[in-house]
């Protein structure tokens, strides 16, 4: 088990926003985290990164381990070494995830150097990673505002690959992209899982995408996991009322909501 969450509780002041009993992620598995806005999906991902504090929330109890290493309430300097190198995160707005003042290549090299690669290693890893996400090497010469959304998201994923991350937290990575590009990104994530055995926590409110991509799915509501299981089973024959409502709320082609 690469990622284990046990009895995780996150608070905003006195209000509990996440309360997860158990959530596991295996190497080579894509786990979907579905649920409506505000259900605690992103907060869970931030907790894994150790970044809840920046949004004013606090982990009040529980345990998160990555590769058997406890992450909750560790010193920030220790967590910084894990962020990026072991766990990578990609975001909904890929273009704005890059500092507009730097060339993409600089961002790659800096990030790799930050985690201990030498200059030549950094360059080599960046090259391999770009090949893996099927982008030309000269993409590194571009600046962020010269990228399309799909290219930027590919580059964000390539950065995770270059950093040799074992766990990828994908927070709505396709929600801002149009459907054809969405498909390419999903293919890419699937390929990384198959080739590198990357473990992916795929956060999405889009059940169609979750059903297509994920092996397992956890449905969150108001900070709790209300249903968990193989994605085909959960999404085709949900046992929980809320999941059923969520599944039914997806508009289908040829039908019209009454």
């Amino acid at each position, binding site marked *: 088990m690469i990622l284990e969450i046990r009895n995780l509780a996150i608070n905003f002041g006195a209000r509990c926003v996440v309360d997860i009993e158990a959530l596991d992620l295996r190497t080579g598995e894509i786990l979907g985290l579905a649920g409506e806005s505000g259900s605690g999906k992103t907060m869970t991902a931030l907790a894994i990164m150790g970044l809840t504090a*920046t949004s004013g929330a606090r982990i009040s109890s529980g345990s998160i381990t990555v590769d058997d290493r406890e992450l909750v309430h560790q010193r920030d300097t220790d967590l910084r070494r894990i962020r*990026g190198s072991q766990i990578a995160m990609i*975001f909904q707005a890929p273009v704005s995830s890059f*500092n*507009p003042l730097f060339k993409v290549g600089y961002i790659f090299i800096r990030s790799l150097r930050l985690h201990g690669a030498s200059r030549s290693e950094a360059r080599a890893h960046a090259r391999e990673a770009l090949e893996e996400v099927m982008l030309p090497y000269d993409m590194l010469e571009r600046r962020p505002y010269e990228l399309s959304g799909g290219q930027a998201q590919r580059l964000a994923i390539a*950065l995770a690959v270059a950093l040799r991350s074992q766990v990828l937290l994908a927070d709505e990575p396709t929600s801002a992209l149009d459907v054809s590009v969405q498909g390419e990104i999903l293919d890419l994530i699937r390929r990384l899982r198959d080739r590198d055995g990357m473990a992916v926590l795929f956060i999405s409110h889009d059940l169609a995408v979750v059903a297509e991509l994920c092996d397992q799915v956890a449905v969150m509501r108001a900070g709790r996991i209300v249903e968990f299981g193989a994605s085909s089973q959960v999404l085709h024959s949900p046992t929980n009322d809320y999941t059923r409502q969520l599944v039914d709320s997806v508009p289908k082609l040829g039908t019209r909501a009454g």
Partner: protein
Amino acid sequence: MKAPSLADTRTRTAVIAVRRNPLLSAGAVIALALVAAAVLAPLVAPYPQDAGTAMHAGAILLAPSWNHPFGTDMFGRDIFTRVLYGARVSLGITGLVLAISVAIGVPLGIVAGYFGGFIDNVIMRVTDVFLAFPALLLALAFATVLGASTRNAVLAIAIAWWPWYARLARGQAASVAGRGFIEACRALGVGRVRMLWRHVLPNSLTPLIVSVSLDAGGVILTAAALSFLGLGAQDPTPEWGLMVSQGQSFFTTQWWLVTFPGLAIMLTAMAFNLAGDGLREILDPRRVVTR
């Protein structure tokens, strides 16, 4: 065959913007002339020794002429020379004041804006205390306490000035802190110092550059005001405000003592204001050029 890079295009756009903007051109030309005057003063000035303690008993209060284009003062010193050297003093004071103010205000503002919360409150309440008084009044008070000298005038003005940059930097940093790449940087394990220095600061700079260039005029005026009131540069420093102050008792009969340094102050302040306005127009992409 290489397509023109975006940087080239941007430079070209900037050049066009400067050409289309007569105010900026005028401001920039005057400001450059001033810098040239400051740098070249020893070469251009007809009587370099008059910038110092020289006295010429035989040439007191001469009206402007070919020998003394701006006339001479009550010690027989060539005013043209002193106005040229005055550019050095004024630009030096302005540069130092702005540098000190930026060096204090911007880091504090960036820290306040990025971290928010308690630190933000502490820093901003301190700036509130400073901003509660008019800048000139505060500078006067500090200059009085520190004692009258050019160096103390610089310190006094800088003390009154930095809170503005702290405020401005705070607002910028707070908005930058909410942008996606900051979150992405955190997720990559970027540390706090690097985050502030390489990511927050550079993305907060544009309005600061504009503000600093607009403020140069104000600083020159404030420095002149301090010297005029006897709280800044002391004789024989060829400071424009001081020259106006010394010349005022001769104003009704020897108008040139006050007029030329006064014009220099006015031109300089105006030049920096024009250049600052122009810069703002160029650097603000939301502003549509209407001409």
